[in-house]
């Protein structure tokens, strides 16, 4: 058995129900996300479209995070899920540096790395991942990609030529697929993040990952120098020229 995920971007309407369901199911703390939906506007007015891209762990078959983890906190399950044992994690952030998809975060409450596990605890109990259940348009398709009769296998076969993964050049062999995606939606270098043009938020970088006072040194220095209140920093340098000449799963 090899569990995989497929998102049909033609169906996704950006309601963020999956994002919220994931937050609730896994008690993901504020400022952290296991799954998020990114909005991208493509084209030139009036010929424009808005694309929604749910982003989560790709559960790679050759996972760089599993390889770099010094204590096997990140490990494979028999069903192909890249799982994480928070009780073993030392918080070195090596996995965050290794993941090409930015899918791992440092939990500010436990001070350990965390990420999407395809809701491994629900699957163990015979349930679907929370995000799959919450999706109102069934854009999230989950199942065994080694089983030819599974819905995901059918979907992949039916959409041959239009099934993509993020950053295939990394040779991580992701088990998370997209239908209706393209360069603008799946390649972070192919779209701009312009300061001040966000719909609901500015484009920001978190200055600190996890607990801002996580280290022993901080615990000594913070009473003297104060904490890090300016933890949100408005910076981004991805401002690459690109052409959005065709629509990709937009609305």
């Amino acid at each position, binding site marked *: 058995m090899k569990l995989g995920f497929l998102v049909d971007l033609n169906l996704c309407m950006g309601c963020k129900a999956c994002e919220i369901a994931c937050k609730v199911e896994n008690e993901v703390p504020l400022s952290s996300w296991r799954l998020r939906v*990114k*909005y*991208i*506007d*493509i084209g*030139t007015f009036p010929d424009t479209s808005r694309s929604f891209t749910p982003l989560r762990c790709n559960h790679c078959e050759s996972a*760089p995070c599993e390889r*770099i*983890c*010094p*204590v096997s906190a990140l490990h494979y399950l028999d069903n192909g899920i890249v799982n994480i044992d928070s009780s*073993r*994690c*030392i*918080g*070195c*952030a*090596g996995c965050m*540096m*290794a*993941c*090409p*998809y*930015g899918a791992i*975060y*440092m939990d500010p409450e436990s*001070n*350990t790395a965390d990420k999407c596990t395809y809701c491994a605890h629900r699957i163990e109990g015979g349930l679907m991942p929370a995000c799959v259940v919450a999706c109102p348009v069934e854009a999230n398709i989950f199942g065994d990609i080694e089983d030819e009769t599974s819905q995901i296998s059918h979907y992949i076969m039916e959409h041959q030529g239009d099934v993509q993964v993020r950053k295939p050049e990394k040779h991580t062999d992701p088990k998370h697929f997209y239908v209706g995606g393209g360069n603008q*939606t799946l390649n*972070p*270098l*192919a779209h*701009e*993040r*312009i300061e001040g*043009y*966000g719909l609901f*938020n500015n*484009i*920001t*970088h*978190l200055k*600190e*990952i*996890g607990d801002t006072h*996580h*280290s*022993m*040194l901080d615990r000594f220095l913070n009473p003297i120098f104060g904490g890090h209140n300016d933890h*949100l*920093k408005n910076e*981004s*340098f*991805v401002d*690459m*020229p*690109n*052409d*959005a*000449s065709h629509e990709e799963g937009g609305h």
Partner: protein
Amino acid sequence: MDHVSTIEATKAVVTLDVPLPGIIWGWMITLNMWAKSIGTGVILVGAYLLYRHKKEDMPNLRWMMPLISFIALNVFLLFTLLDLHQPLRMVNIFFHPHWTSAITVGAWMASLFTGLVTLMLAIGLLDAFPEVGRHLGIAKTIRGKTALYEKVFPFVVFLAFPVTMYTAIIMAEASARELWAAPAEVIQMLLAAFMVGSASFILIAGKWSESVRKDLSWILMLSVLFSFLMYMGEYFFSFKASEVEATLAYVHSGGEYFVQFWSAMIMGYIIPFFIAFSSLKNENRTMMRFAAVLTFIGLYLAKSTWLEIPQMLSLS
């Protein structure tokens, strides 16, 4: 309307997303790499000096070499620990090691290396200062094992190479950051060790023979030259992934990291090169010490820049 016309261009624009992670490995990791370069560099350069010259030419090398290394390695280990979000779980690396991780392999090697350097320091210090701990049983025991210093030293030199270079393998395993390519980083780590190893000795080589000091000038000059050339090659003629191009384009466009990178190159590489070069003909000890201090500063800034810039790139 100017702003609107900018937005109207044929672009794909992110209009809603979460905040992105900024710098994850920051100054503590920079300090970690910098200190490790000193800790291993003095061993590598010290081994070369001992091979080339008589011990009488550098009378305090036998205890100064492990002392500098010991201090630097402890700084390295301290900040490695402090950077962890769960520092007390560091023991998991020894009880639950995952051998595909360069972090694990490096931690084991660095621990062994530090242990052996500590042993060399104890023997070297007690031999150099016979009055110290004269009545202590442990001191007597260690003094009785003086020959162990020379037996252990070859293993320490051998181990210094992988301990110097393993961080480059960690960076290579951090495959999300294309800028850190293994072959280049391995060579840069080795050159960094020779840079600060020779710089450390230049600061204490006042009473060493002229031929030793000349060798130190050679090592400093050549290591900063090759390291500088490698940085220039990567900076200007990078034929790597588009992510690297985007990262370097960001630095090229100016700003904080542009200033930091070029400050590092001028302070840590260009100035020390010319001082060391001129010192080969007309030695000026004060200027060489100045070059050594600049090398320390420049290397830190260069490491910091190279560590942080790829982390500014959005991965999703």
